[in-house]
């Protein structure tokens, strides 16, 4: 399992990568492995607000649906609409397949670095 060092992680298995004042958000390798083959993603629209610790969308595998929680409070600047046609990208390359880009960030949940998240996953698994 892969835990890139340049990302931060949530206890609900999202990753966040800051770029200037904005941040990209996606699901972790562990999350995609637990969910299995992903076939659908439901994303917010540009301009929607997301709240730290609250669901902003969901992904669905063949078997189940899973909420995706926002690591931060902010406003959606971009949504990765390409994932609608290629949800399997989240399985194949979860750290490239970002879901949303958020700006105007005002609050954050407790985030873990790669090492702490890896230990967290090991405990959970």
């Amino acid at each position: 399992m892969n835990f890139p060092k340049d990302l931060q992680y949530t206890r609900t298995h999202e990753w966040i990568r800051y770029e200037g004042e904005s941040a990209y958000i996606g699901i972790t390798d562990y999350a995609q492995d637990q969910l299995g083959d992903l076939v659908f993603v439901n994303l917010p629209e540009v301009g929607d607000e997301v709240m730290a610790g609250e669901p902003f969308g969901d992904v669905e595998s063949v078997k189940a649906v899973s909420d995706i929680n926002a690591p931060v409070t902010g406003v959606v600047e971009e949504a990765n609409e390409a994932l609608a046609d290629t949800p399997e990208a989240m399985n194949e390359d979860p750290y490239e397949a970002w879901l949303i880009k958020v700006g105007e960030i005002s609050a954050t949940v407790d985030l873990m670095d790669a090492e702490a998240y890896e230990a967290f996953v090991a405990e959970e698994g």
Partner: protein
Amino acid sequence: MEAKKTPLYEKHVQAGGKIVEFAGYLLPVQYPTGVIKEHMAVRTACGLFDVSHMGEITVKGKDAVRFLNHLLTNDYTVMEDGQARYSPMCNPEGGVVDDLIVYKVQEDDYFIVVNAANKDKDFAWIKAQVQGNVEVQDISETIAQLALQGPKAETILKKLTAEDQIPTGYYTANFQGTVAGFPAIISRTGYTGEDGFELYVSPEHAPALWDLLLENGAEEGLIPCGLGARDTLRLEAAMPLYGHEMNDEITPRTAGLGSFVKMKKEEFIGKEALERLGKPTERRVGLKVTGKGIAREHQDVYADGRKIGVTTSGTHSPYLKYPIAMAIVEDAYRAVGTQVEVDVRGRRVAAEVVKLPFYKKD
């Protein structure tokens, strides 16, 4: 109660199966291959399932046929040895206790396969209904079941079994079979919508047979498959699942199983209630989701601005590549082409009534 392990549990763990508890058993929901590839293997080549959790009950005695005709909605009067016949088993209110398959082994000797989740309930129910000279036994613990399913199933089975031992007709079985030298019931049945076999063997032979099948089927593309693919396969084939498309309140006719209810039989448990209820006011239909979202079970179905039914099963169809669901809706909305909406966690998603099954093999 602690979950039981099937005789193949270690095989699933060794193969990296993702183990979940289902109907009191620890079983793989999928292997590292993933549900979609497992599903497609069964549609295009072959898949191997551990279905040892299923229950097996024998009914023997001079009055066995008469008893089955009383117990079940289908008619068992005329059957060949080795023939299998599906039936709902109703309660006196016309709801369904379980659905099951009865095999005629020989005169006065029947073999019944029931759903894992219901086997204790079924056994108690069947025993409580016994009439005449009939002996009922739960033999589930003495049997392991492997399902070999897909267009290549026969080719693979032929490598381990003499050709004359393989039943040729769908819903027939050979009760004196051997596979790879192990005594086996070889049944041409399944829960996938494909050709295939269900092999009933002794638990101690199951692990060796599992390995031999996988070895011999490798060149045909045989892979082990989990419960996830079993569910998506049966859903595409529109095969009902107890607890979803039927339960102790949903009648067989509402579930679309009217052809397995022989109202012309003199009597059977539930007949009076089904007569009284008459034509069902709600029916099972197939839905193709045309909007964005995946319908799952227990979601409300709307049309003309009001609730007209509820989904009973739903998933993304790996073969058709769009979301499908089955639902029980008011009779007026069951025509193919009817436009409806499904409440997917607060969002109304467009869907259309389509013909069942969603998938039918050539």
